[in-house]
Structures are given as structure tokens and as C-alpha cells.
């Protein structure tokens, strides 16, 4: 190994400072857990410090455009670019909130003796997701996906005493195992055809027409299956309602935001880098011949949102309802990709930034209610708006935002998706998506109906919420309301984050 390569390795290590921070945090978490045997109070602090440091490093190198871990040619296994950094930042932010959720979650607190592994596994997931959003190599993609999956299987079954929890974990493992197997099959076919696992190299190889054959198309679809399962796109969504319902609420929230965001980042990078031919000045992508990704993703996204929305109409469990709602939102987000333009990616980024807050907020309120009542059934929400007006109003705002009504931020997210669609002249798709929004109103409003319109048989006992919980809810509420009327900073951030390395 000559000095040049060693230098390059060291440079690469500099580029993955956030990931290294997370890895160190994992080690410290394990050590703290071992040393402070009975006292688990230190763990959340260590986690938060780790996340803050990682967050600092991400912001520090936000606009870097570089490859890391050179594979011999001019490309590398990892890509550090603004696009990836945005998603890393989102993941770190969501993780920080999840840590705070976990601290106040009753379910998690009841398993105090296993807190060490809980936080360690969360950090395992974070590490996996960070690699996921910056990987440019099929092997790294697969490894990071597995790291995320394996950690989340265990986390989903963390409160193993309850029956539905174990069921959730088992279902998750089976579905996850099958889809990652399918994905691996796709990867092996692509490697067989091209002889490379690097997305950039594959892209330059398939510029020649003889490789653009049906087998290659099928391999692309097989890989999509693996990612589609992570973002719970139909028809790979069947695990979502059961896992979301069974898992502890902080983990459900984590899966619905961070894991989905990482999946989307990976999907966008995979499709764009592998199949791109050129990007025109208008920002529209031209993909390589044989694979009509655009139509494929349009079909998947319409299927996903319609299925999610209609299935949600009949749900009586809040976690299940939010699970189907998150499937529907994956559908809207996929539309941003279906536009196949930079504008669409900007719309996805804006949507995610908003979605993180409103969805986390909704889960937070559901968790706070479940902490007290021990139930997530919609029937137990009757009269909640009167007994605990603060939580009632907060949940109402989050749900209205998820519906996408102004003046909440959810409207801005939807607006940008529709702007991208109309600009690409995909009017029919936009109409279908808008009609879906109207359908979604019904089930979100049903929750409001239970909270404010229905009176329970016996007066619901008012319960107190801790000041910390109130503060956390307010932290979630603020961006949902502020970005609804002033979204300039958000769009500026999105604009600066759409740049993918190389294109």
C-alpha cells in the first residue's frame, strides 16, 4: 500500500466523522451500561451528546462533494454530498427526538434493566441509516440496509412481554428477510452483468445499449423490492400496520420517520445514479432506455397512497391508523420521485422536513395519552379534547397538518409536490393525489371527532402532563405552524440539498 492510498484512506475517515462519532457512541453506551450496572440515567445523556457531536460534524461538512473509500477508479464506496447530508441531519434530529420520547415513554421505562441494549440498538440503526443515505455501492447498500433491519427487528420486539409485540417483531423479521433476499438476488444479477458493484461504474457501463436488456430491468425491480419494503410502498407494505401497532411507540415513530427517510434517500440515489443519462437545464432527468422508471413509480405511488388512505378509513387503533397514514404519505413522497426532476427531489426534501415534525408530533401525543390511559384505541379518545385540551388541540393540529390543510406546514409539503407535478405536466396524477387528500381528511377528522364531538359515557378523567412533555410537544408544534406561513428557510435548505454527487 503506497502513501497515496494511505492518505486517501485518512481523508476518507475525515469525511465520515459523523459515522465514526456514532460508532464511538455505541462503544461508550455499551461501556456505560456495563459499568453503571443499576443506574441507567446516564444513557440518554450519552446518546444526546453523541447525536449533538454527530450533528455538528454533518453541518460542518454539509456542502462537501466528495467520494470516500476509493475503489480504485475515480469513484468510491461512499458519497458525501449535500443530499446525503440533509438526510443524515434529518435522521440525527429524529433520533434525538426519539431519545427524548423514550425517556418519557412508560413502555420503555418498564424495561429499565434492558435500557443499555435499547439505546445501543437505536445507535446501531442510526449508523446503518447514515451509511444507507451515502452509499454508492451495492455491497454497502446491502450491508447498511441489513444493519438497520437487524437492529430494528429487535427494537420492534423490545417490550417482549406483550404478545402483540413479539408478533410484530416476528412478522418484521420474516418480511424483512424475504425482501432483503430478493434484493440480494437483484444485486447479484447486476454484478453478473456488469462486473461491478459501484453505482457510478454501472452507470457508465450501461450507457452502451447492449447491456440495457430485460434481465437488467428485472434486477432493478428486485432491488426496488428491497428498498420498497423499507419505505413501505405498496405492495410491500403488509408488515407496516402490524409492526407499527405492535412495536413500542417511540420505535414506531422512529421507523415511520428515520427509517423511511433513509429508504427514500437510498431509492433516489440508486435510481438517479444508476440509470441517469443526462439532466437537462430545466432540471428534468433523462433516464436510460429500457427501464421506464417513471411509469413504474407512478403506478407504485398511486397504489401506495390509495391503499394507505382507504385502509386507514376503517382503523380504530391510533397506531394502526398512523401506520396506514404513513403508507399514504410514502405514496405522496414517491410522486416527488416520479417527476424525475430536481424540483421533485426538492419537494421530497421539503416534505420530509415537515413530515418529520408532524408525524413525530402525532406519535408523541399518542404516546403521552397511552402513558396515562394505557390504550391507543380511538374509542378511548372520546372527550379527550375536553379533559386534556392541550393534548387534544396539539393532536388536532398535527393531524390537520398531515391532511395538508393551510395554514399548517403540511400544506406547504403537499403544495411543493403538486407544484412539481403540474410543472412536469402530470395533471392526471396530481388530480388522483388531490382526491386522495380528500379521502385522507375523513380518517384524520374522525380522530378529531372522537376527541371533540363525542362525549364519553363517563367523564374522562383529566390527567396531568409533565412540563417536559409539554415543552416537547411545543417544540414539535412550532415548526408545524411557523413553516405553514413562512417557509422560505425550508425551501432554501431544500434547494441547497438537492445536489447529488456527480449530477
Amino acid at each position: 500500500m503506497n502513501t497515496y492510498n494511505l492518505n486517501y484512506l485518512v481523508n476518507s475517515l475525515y469525511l465520515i466523522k459523523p459515522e465514526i462519532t456514532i460508532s464511538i457512541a455505541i462503544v461508550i453506551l455499551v461501556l456505560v451500561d456495563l459499568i453503571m450496572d443499576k443506574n441507567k440515567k446516564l444513557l440518554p445523556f450519552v446518546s444526546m451528546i453523541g447525536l449533538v457531536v454527530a450533528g455538528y460534524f454533518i453541518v460542518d461538512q454539509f456542502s462537501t462533494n466528495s467520494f470516500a473509500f476509493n475503489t480504485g477508479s475515480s469513484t468510491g464506496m461512499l458519497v458525501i454530498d449535500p443530499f446525503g447530508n440533509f438526510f443524515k441531519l434529518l435522521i440525527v434530529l429524529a433520533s434525538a427526538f426519539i431519545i427524548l420520547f423514550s425517556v418519557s415513554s412508560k413502555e420503555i421505562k418498564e424495561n429499565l434493566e434492558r435500557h443499555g441494549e435499547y439505546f445501543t440498538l437505536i445507535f446501531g440503526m442510526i449508523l446503518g441509516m447514515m451509511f444507507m443515505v451515502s452509499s454508492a455501492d451495492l455491497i454497502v447498500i446491502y450491508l447498511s440496509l441489513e444493519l438497520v433491519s437487524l437492529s430494528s427487528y429487535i427494537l420492534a420486539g423490545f417490550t417482549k412481554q406483550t404478545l402483540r409485540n413479539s408478533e410484530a417483531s416476528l412478522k418484521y423479521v420474516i418480511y424483512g428477510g424475504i425482501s432483503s433476499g430478493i434484493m440480494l438476488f437483484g444485486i447479484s444479477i447486476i454484478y453478473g452483468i456488469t462486473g461491478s458493484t459501484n453505482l457510478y461504474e454501472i452507470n457508465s457501463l450501461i450507457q452502451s445499449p447492449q447491456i440495457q436488456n430485460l434481465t437488467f430491468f428485472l434486477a432493478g425491480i428486485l432491488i426496488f423490492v428491497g428498498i420498497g419494503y423499507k419505505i413501505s410502498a405498496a405492495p410491500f407494505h403488509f408488515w407496516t400496520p402490524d409492526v407499527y401497532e405492535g412495536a413500542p411507540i417511540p420505535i414506531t415513530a422512529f421507523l415511520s420517520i428515520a427509517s423511511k427517510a433513509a429508504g427514500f434517500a437510498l431509492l433516489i440515489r440508486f435510481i438517479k445514479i444508476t440509470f441517469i443519462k443526462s439532466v437537462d437545464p430545466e432540471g428534468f432527468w433523462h433516464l436510460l432506455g429500457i427501464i421506464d422508471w417513471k411509469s413504474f413509480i407512478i403506478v407504485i405511488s398511486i397504489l401506495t397512497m390509495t391503499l394507505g388512505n382507504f385502509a386507514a378509513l376503517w382503523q380504530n387503533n391510533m397506531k394502526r391508523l398512523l401506520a396506514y397514514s404513513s403508507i399514504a404519505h410514502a405514496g405522496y413522497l414517491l410522486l416527488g420521485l416520479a417527476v424525475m426532476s430536481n424540483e421533485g427531489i426538492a419537494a421530497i426534501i421539503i416534505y420530509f422536513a415537515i413530515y418529520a415534525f408532524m408525524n413525530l408530533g402525532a406519535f408523541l401525543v399518542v404516546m403521552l395519552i397511552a402513558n396515562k390511559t394505557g390504550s391507543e384505541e380511538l374509542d378511548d379518545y372520546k372527550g379527550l379534547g375536553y379533559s386534556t385540551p392541550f393534548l387534544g388541540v396539539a393532536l388536532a393540529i398535527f393531524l390537520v397538518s398531515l391532511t395538508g390543510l393551510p395554514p399548517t406546514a403540511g400544506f406547504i409539503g403537499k403544495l411543493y409536490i403538486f407544484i412539481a407535478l403540474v410543472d412536469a405536466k402530470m395533471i392526471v396524477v396530481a388530480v388522483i393525489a388531490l382526491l386522495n387528500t380528500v379521502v385522507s381528511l375523513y380518517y384524520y377528522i374522525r380522530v378529531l371527532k372522537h376527541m371533540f364531538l363525542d362525549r364519553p359515557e363517563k367523564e374522562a378523567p383529566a390527567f396531568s402532563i409533565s412540563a417536559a412533555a409539554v415543552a416537547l410537544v411545543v417544540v414539535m408544534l412550532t415548526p408545524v405552524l411557523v413553516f405553514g406561513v413562512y417557509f422560505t428557510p425550508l425551501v432554501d435548505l431544500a434547494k441547497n440539498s438537492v445536489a447529488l454527487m456527480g449530477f
Partner: protein
Amino acid sequence: MENFPILSFITFLPVVGMLIILFIPKTQETVIKSLTLLVTGIQVIAALIILHGFNYSLGGINDPSSFQFIEKFKWIDITGFSWIGRIKVDYFLGIDGLSVTMVLLTAIVTFIATLSSWNISKSIKGYFLMFLLLDTGMMGVFVALDFFLFYIFWELMLLPMYFLIGIWGGPRREYAAIKFFLYTLLGSVFILLVMIGLYFSSTETLADGSKIFTFNMLSMMDVHNFTANGILSPLNPNNLRLIAYIALFVGFAIKIPMFPFHTWLPDAHVEAPTAISVILAGVLLKMGTYGILRVCYPIFPDITIKLVWFIALFGLINIIYGALCAMAQKDFKKLIAYSSVSHMGFVLLGMASLNTIGISGAILQMFNHGTITAMLFLTVGVIYDRAHTRGLDDFGGLATQMPIYAGFTTLAFFAAIGLPGLSGFVSEAFVFLGAFGSGSIRTLAVIGTLGILLGAGYMLWTMQRVFLGSLKEKWNKLPDLDFREYAMLIPLSLIVIFLGVYPSAMLNLMNASVNHMVKFMMDAKTVYGSLIGF
């Protein structure tokens, strides 16, 4: 006073009221009510100040320089890469002869509705919070000149209305509330889509000469601002303007409500508390027709000219169908609700005439219907509060028991029928004069006069059933009007009589704008014709 942002003041005053009420403990019911009354009272005064300062000779409609009380600030301005364009949304308020009448109507009706809300007994604080939020939404729609802003205000009204019907309504309130919400949201998503389409088709020239896409409604009204290949640009031979127009029209028509999108209205009205019925009929229905006049007409004059016959046809169906439905009702409130459908048909018919008399009649009818229907719903509320029933067949002979009440009700009924000397007459007469004067829809107008006959039929029949005949034993304890009810009915009665005797007060207000709009629509024929070969 010159630079005082009075439109922002009148729009956001209710929000200030909301914030104060938020910190008043909910046991202080009288304080909350009085504060709301104060806020809406100040709104009335502000509306009168606006009226006082209003220049009658300025047209507005599509001409930014002749709008009044303009407030224009940069709200959102995102400069970007070539592919994302520059997104600019202005906080742009202003009024012309069309909107000033609606601002006045909103202020008056909201004030009366606050008085009418006095006997709300459930969760007072929540009620008035929602009420004030609704107030802001309504005012905002009438003063916004930026499409984005307009849309936000438009949607802002949905949620409070849902709660106001859903929590404080009658037995089937939940059904009525969700039906209202789904229907209107369906309408507004169409509006949203057309808004985005228009955004990508029209540009605004900035001070530095650069052209950017815009949400500015006034820029969209100038055909020269359209881009060559925008999907809604008249310059693009493959444009989707007709489809967009229909989508936009349906979005507004749901609010009017125009047949066949009217089915939410009877449900919403029957279940809503009196005050909310008053607001719904008095202000919210006007937003549909206002939207058509403010957005559909000047932005799509080419399509409007082609489709006026259909607008008139639907107006006619509304008139006849609404009247026939009203005739079949046994519920007092449902009858008034269907009479609203019928009366809003007159507005559509007047608008379709595209001449000064017809459009003036339509706008005047919007104002008059707002005040008259408010009165009608209030009188229904009065009897329901006392008798706890609205069945028309349950009553009879009330004229002897409650003579003053009977007097006010008769006045409202006659105004609704269109008796000369009362405000309803003038606007209906103008609508028909206009419609007769316009060649294309004359036949429809002739049939439409049947509506007046039918209107007289069901109104007089209702009077007979409620007030004449022999008084039933169980109603001989009903007290006549109290002070609060006087306070609600007398101002409205005065307006109804005043505008019946001296309609010019209102007509002069809108005259310049209506003339301007008619001229604009007529010019559009040549302007669009020369551009795209009409």
C-alpha cells in the same frame, strides 16, 4: 390615518381577540362573549370607516392602480436555480367595489351572529375561539388579491366551521359537519390545482424588468402576462383552460351551492346552531359567487364568454329546483335553506348576463340575500328557542300570540319574495332586467321568473301555516321578542327597508367596478380574439 393598514386590521382583529380569549378562564363566560361582541363591533366600525374613505369612482377588478386601501408586502420570495424558478408570494390586500360590499356584509352579519350566539351554553370559550377564527377567514377571502393568500384564507374557514357545526349543532351534527367538510375540501382541491396551473402559466414583471411566475391574481388577468407554453396560457394552442375553468367553477360552485353540489347545505343548515346558520347563509355562500366574479371571470374571460349560457342554465335550475324543494319542506329551517339555494340561483343568472345591470343585480342580490336570509334564520332561531320544534305543521296562529315577532318575520318573508319597497325586489328586478337585456340567456330568464312565483308560493304558504289559523293550546305561553332579539332584527330590518327605498347607496358603491368589469369582459373578446383567433 392615511397609512393605517385598515384591511389587515379588520382581518386580523379577530385573531387578536382569539389570543386574548385564550387567556381568559373559561368560567368567565360573560367576559368572553362581551369581548367577541366588542371585536365584531369594532369590525363594523372599521367597515364603516372603509366605506367612508372609499372612492366611488375607482374601478379595480384587474387594475392594480385603482384598488383601494392596498397593502402589499413581500411575504415569501425564494430565489433559486433555473429549474425551481423564483417563488414569490405577496401579502397583497386591497378592495374594489366588488369586495367592499362583501366586507361590509361580513362585518354586519358577524356582529349580528355574535348577538345570536349569546344563548350558546356548551363550551363557550371554544365556541367563540372558533367563531373568531372563522371571522378572520371570511374577511381574508374578501380582501386578498394574491391567489396563494386567498387560498389560505379560503381553507382557514373549513376547520372552525366543522367544529361549530359538529360540536354545537343539532342531533345529526356529526354527519352534517363531515359532509360539509368533505364537500368543501373537494371543491378547494380543484381550486388549488388550478392555482398551481395558473402559477406556471402567468408571469409578473418586477421593477428590474425580470419576469417571474406569480400568484398575483391581477397579473393573471392580463393576457400579456401569460407565458407562451404554460398549460393554462391562452397563447398555448393546447391549453387546458376550459377544463381548468370548469374545475375552478365547480370548486366555487360547491360553496354557492349550485345544483347538483348543493346537498350539503340543507344538512349543514338544519344541524348548525342559529348563529352559524346565519353566517353560513349570510356570508359563506357568497364566497362561491364572489370567487367566480373575482377569479373565474377576469382570469378566464375567454372561457366565461363561451360558457355564460351554462352558468345561466345552472342558475335557472337552482332557482326552480330550490323553490320546489323549499315548497316540499316540513321543517322551517330546511325550507329557508332551500330558499337560499333558490335565491343564489338569481345571483348566477345575473352574473351570466355580462351586462352592468345584471352584474350589479347579482352583487346586490348577494348583499341582500345575506341580510334577508340572516333575518330569516334568526326568526327560525327565535321560534326554535321557545318551542323547541321547527315543524311547520306544529304551529299556527302565532300572529296573535307573538305579534311583533310575526311582524319581523313577515318583513323578512316579503323581502325574500321581492316585494317592491324592500331590498329583495331591487336586486331581483335588476337580475331579470340584465338577463332579459342579454340576448343569449333571455329564454332562460323568462323561465326564471317562475322562480319568483314559486318563491311567493312557498313563503306565503309558510306564513299561513305558522302565523294564521287558530293558535294551538300548547303555544299560548310563548313570550314575544326580548331585547337581544330586537337588537339583532332591527338593524337588519332597517337595512332591508333602506336598500329597498334607496338601492343607489349600494349600487353607487359598486358601479365603477361593475362597469369596469363589463368593459373588461367585452374587451376580452377582441384582446383574446386578436391573440389566439377567437
